[in-house]
């Protein structure tokens, strides 16, 4: 029982209160809850409170970061979410940092952390606006804003009708005319299997809205799509358009960055906007959008001119240095100042600092990436990192040793095999540095304009909201209206769901399973598990897919009815959840953990962590003997530069090394086995527009430049308070950030006659949106900016009508090299409304 004050004492206080109330003869005292509550509290402490109920370890999915969580469930209700101390994703991306002081009882030394969104999962789970039952559209008019005239359906009825539409496609030999899109971290394997067995090559996921430009740049230069910054051990951190302390993807980011600065690292952030990360930095370098590559080249110019580069690393581990040096010879600071607006003197100083402070970590994310010159700019930044030896050494960009569950590929039957031979509708093949996540922009543009290799008939859209997230809302709407059937699976009535024919309620991450190979630098895998049963009795998405697969009787080449037979036991499994649990067990058994799902659940924090930890300078290590014994060489095994694969290349062999200085070394997974400052193989390719590609990381201005009609750049960004376009109905998060004013520099605003708080129009050739102006010197004077994610017309009663959507202002267009959506390539005019 709670005692207000030991000296006064609860009992005495109550006695006095009772006597006084009796004396005054007030009946009101009986309504005072104190007496009853005090007596009951001991009993309630058993029923509620930290010791009551259970704490279930799981993984977050409020964003794509998948950090570990501990979820408190009492009487079947989630009442608190806390960090999971056993999951490295919440603490450190380097194993020595994580294991220092780690105990099985408590996990990492100081305890993990979770961000505001992770804490706000409760509001997502119990949002009254959630979709509860399957819905069917009865209004054929699919223009945005039209009332869909929803009709509620039973699950049985909805699955039956959707399966009927799918069956009709497949029976007509048109399985490839099904488009399927989903989030990129949740149950992607089972969706891949479904698409393969059904026979459509058109499975695409979110990544191409996010960081495939960065992936393309780094894949070219170091042969790895996602090196991870080891801030913690760095002395100098130079970030181009990355905002890790606010766009917190992995909960460890704020800790490792602030800890680095505490230990003496200098943080410099290059960005048109003084982001929340730049607010923590020693120095903010305001830059004109999409010119980061020019800045990097000028820094390279100085580093080479003054011979400040890491000569040993450049000699032993890079190719193309001479060519690059010749190219940057005239890329002087004065040249870059013209382009970037960064003073030449600043460029000189930054170049000297970053080259002479070791170790230096140079990284880039989606700021420079979302423009038509984003991949080349990213390559220029990656090349700069190579000059200072900034790869796979402590305090630099580490090539992660990411291992986890193994996706076992299915073999489709003959019918599916036939339709799988059709090209992808999003023309991914035309993008020389395209990512397996596909090209949303090309897909929607093709649909809207009636182009592409064929006309798709059906779309299944799982937890994606292209009406808000893909640039060019009008053409996305037009595209959706051209499809015969649109099925949306989501937890909320998104703007895309409003365009659908069928809407199936999905699950919040607290209601379902997933395996998460974590983005730390050594193998770790965390479990997401249902901490409560789906609260409306709905199927989890993987169960919906399995139920559809069963109705369609999808079979493997061997004739095995894939969705009926337990993947581990080989026996029929009726229960949908039990079948998926077996599916996950098989992925774990055949993957790195080699344990079952039940065993993973029993591990501390339900996370498997490989004790061998982070390895550095992996590129210099020999290919292990056992792997070498079964390896396949792409040429003479003795010849310099021969690539080594784990199995023949035409059998989906993966690069495991290269012959370097006569030895089979891991090297970098590039054609040369080294860091490619120049990627010669690019010269043989054409981009999606048919242009040749320069093998040097050249600077060219992006396509869309300001004009007298549209004189201002428009950029967007993310903050810790919201994820993409999906958390704007979360009441707790709206408390942190209720809307997104358009940020304008006061000098720019003065010129336009705009005052703080004015309603303004932000206008591009593609659309016109209203916003509230906020004046701040945090913005480059040539630029205005909107935090991405607001401006909903649906989603829920809290989200609807708040803030401004930036997607309407851009064309539905992808970067011609990587297929990255161009979320920041936009010019606007701004005037008072």
């Amino acid at each position, binding site marked *: 029982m*709670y005692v*207000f*004050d030991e*000296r*006064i004492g609860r009992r*005495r206080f109550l006695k*006095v*209160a009772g006597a*006084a*109330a009796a004396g005054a003869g007030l009946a*009101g*005292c009986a*309504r*005072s809850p104190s007496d009853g509550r*005090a007596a*009951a509290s001991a009993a*309630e*402490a058993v029923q*509620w409170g*930290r010791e009551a109920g259970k704490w279930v370890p799981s993984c977050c999915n409020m964003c794509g970061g998948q950090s570990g969580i501990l979820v408190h469930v*009492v009487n079947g209700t989630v009442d*608190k979410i*806390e*960090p999971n101390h056993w999951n490295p994703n919440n603490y450190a991306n380097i194993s020595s940092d994580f294991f220092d002081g780690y105990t099985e009882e408590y996990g990492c030394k*100081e305890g993990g*952390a*979770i*961000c*505001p969104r992770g*804490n706000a999962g*409760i509001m997502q789970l*119990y*949002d*009254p*606006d959630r979709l*509860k039952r399957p819905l069917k559209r009865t209004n054929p008019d699919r223009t945005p804003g039209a009332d869909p005239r929803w009709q509620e359906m039973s699950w*049985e009825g909805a699955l039956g009708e959707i399966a009927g539409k799918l069956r009709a496609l497949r029976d007509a030999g048109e399985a490839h005319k099904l488009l399927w899109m989903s989030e990129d971290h949740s149950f992607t394997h089972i969706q891949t299997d479904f698409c393969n067995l059904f026979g459509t090559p058109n499975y695409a996921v979110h990544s191409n809205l996010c960081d495939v430009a960065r992936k393309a740049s780094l894949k070219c230069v170091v042969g790895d799509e996602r090196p991870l910054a080891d801030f913690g051990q760095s002395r100098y951190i130079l970030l181009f358009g990355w905002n890790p*302390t606010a766009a*917190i993807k992995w909960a460890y980011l*704020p*800790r490792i960055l*602030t*800890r680095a600065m*505490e230990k003496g690292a200098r943080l410099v952030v290059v960005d048109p906007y*003084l982001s*929340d990360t730049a*607010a*923590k930095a020693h120095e903010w370098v305001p830059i004109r959008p999409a010119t980061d590559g020019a800045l990097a080249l000028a820094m390279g110019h100085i580093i080479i001119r003054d011979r400040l580069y890491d000569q040993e690393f450049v000699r032993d581990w890079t190719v193309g240095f001479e060519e690059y040096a010749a190219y940057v010879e005239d890329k002087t600071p004065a040249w870059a100042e013209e382009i970037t607006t960064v003073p030449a003197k600043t460029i000189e100083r930054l170049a000297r600092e970053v080259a002479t402070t070791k170790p230096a970590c140079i990284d880039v994310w989606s700021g420079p990436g979302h423009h038509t010159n984003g991949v080349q700019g990213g390559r220029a930044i990656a090349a700069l990192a190579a000059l200072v030896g900034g790869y796979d050494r402590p305090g630099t960009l580490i090539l992660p040793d990411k291992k986890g569950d193994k996706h076992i590929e299915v073999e489709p039957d003959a019918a599916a095999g036939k339709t799988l031979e059709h090209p992808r509708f999003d023309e991914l093949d035309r993008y020389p540095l395209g990512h397996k996540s596909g090209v949303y922009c090309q897909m929607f543009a093709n649909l809207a304009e009636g182009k592409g290799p064929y006309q798709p008939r059906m779309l299944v859209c799982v937890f994606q909201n292209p009406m808000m997230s893909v640039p060019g809302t009008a053409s996305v709407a037009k595209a959706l209206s051209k499809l015969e059937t649109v099925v949306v699976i989501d937890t909320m009535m998104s703007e895309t769901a409003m365009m659908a024919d069928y809407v199936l309620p999905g699950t919040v991450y607290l209601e379902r399973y997933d395996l998460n190979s974590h983005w730390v630098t050594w193998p770790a895998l965390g479990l997401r598990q249902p901490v409560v*049963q*789906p609260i409306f*009795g*709905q199927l989890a998405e993987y169960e919906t897919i399995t139920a559809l697969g069963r109705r369609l009787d999808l079979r493997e080449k061997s004739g095995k009815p894939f969705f009926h037979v337990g993947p581990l036991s080989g026996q029929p499994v*009726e229960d949908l959840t039990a079948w998926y649990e077996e599916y996950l067990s098989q992925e774990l058994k055949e993957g790195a953990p080699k344990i079952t799902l039940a065993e993973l659940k029993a591990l501390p924090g339900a996370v498997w962590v490989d004790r061998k930890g982070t390895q550095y300078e992996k590129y210099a290590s020999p290919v292990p003997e056992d792997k070498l014994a079964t390896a396949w060489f792409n040429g003479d095994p003795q010849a310099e530069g021969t690539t080594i694969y784990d199995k023949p290349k035409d059998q989906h062999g993966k690069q495991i090394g290269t012959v370097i200085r006569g030895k089979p070394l891991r090297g970098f997974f590039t054609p040369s086995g080294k860091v490619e400052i120049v990627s010669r193989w690019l010269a043989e390719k054409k981009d999606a527009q048919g242009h040749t590609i320069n093998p040097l990381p050249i600077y060219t201005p992006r396509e869309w430049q300001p004009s007298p009609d549209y004189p201002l750049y428009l950029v967007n960004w993310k903050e*810790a308070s919201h994820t993409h376009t999906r958390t704007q109905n979360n*009441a*707790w998060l709206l*408390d942190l950030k209720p809307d997104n004013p358009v940020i304008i520099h006061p000098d720019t605003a003065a010129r336009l006659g705009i005052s703080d708080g004015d309603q303004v129009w932000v206008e591009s050739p593609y659309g016109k949106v209203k916003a509230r102006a906020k004046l*701040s010197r*945090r913005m480059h004077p040539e630029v205005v900016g909107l935090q991405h994610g607001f401006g909903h017309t649906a989603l829920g009663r*809290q989200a609807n009508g708040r803030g401004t959507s930036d997607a309407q202002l851009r064309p539905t267009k992808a970067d011609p090299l990587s297929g990255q959506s161009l979320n920041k390539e936009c010019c606007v005019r701004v005037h008072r409304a």
Partner: protein
Amino acid sequence: MNERPDTLEMQEPPARPARELTRRRLVEHLVTIGAGALAAAMGAGAAVAQEREGRLPGAHTAASTGRKYRYGMVIDTRRCVGCKACVVACKAENRTPPGVAYTVVLDEALENRPNDKPLFMTKPCFHCEYPPCVDVCPVAATTKRSQDGIVVVDYDRCIGCRYCITACPYGSRYFDFGENYPAVAWPTPYSQVPSLEYGQFRVREEGRSPIGNVRKCTFCIHLQDQNGAYDRASGRWPACAKTCTGHAIFFGNFNDPESEVSRLLRQRQAIRLKEELGTNPNVYYLL
């Protein structure tokens, strides 16, 4: 197929959500519960006044107070990234309604910093040694605990006059107007979860405390054990400090010279806000 039955029906919103506390209803509320509390306060007032007399020596430093515990925080502004995880964790732990936040993060631009660069700083209640809020309370509903210095509000005594809100120089107190977040306003399973605050397990209900009361940070007092101690290892630790992404919030007992917070004050330069007022806050900031 093995379809699950609907396990839960979230009901449609009540015709009139139980959110607005009108002036009339507030007065009614005060008459019904306040009168009893007022009467009670008259009786207990003497004891509280006595406690106030016993202000402890040495309070101007973080040295021992002679109390069993002297709880406080040290917040490292260099580590705070302004993510506001603390704000949401606090909301979940204490189930505060809209308009009530026991901790907030300041992120406004400071005039003397270039480029409107914000300084991030989380700001809970400072649990002052000389809390101005306590002095102005007409019913002694808000007190500074003799055993650990935590400033608390007795919801059963608070009449909602809000003098304390005016008196607090740090803006750390909030009035509960009875608003609710949608997940609480609409009957969901979550709306039936009681608040752990003060270990009183109150289910939020129209016309009942803490609606109509003044509310504030308690250092998550309900997580103390029977002896008044916190235990970090078992999660019995203030919610904001547990979730902080930059690990910027340190909590502990200033009476223990070996506690983390005591050590930080010895090692680092700390400031407190509005020192000139003599409130002697128990929350320090490292710059």
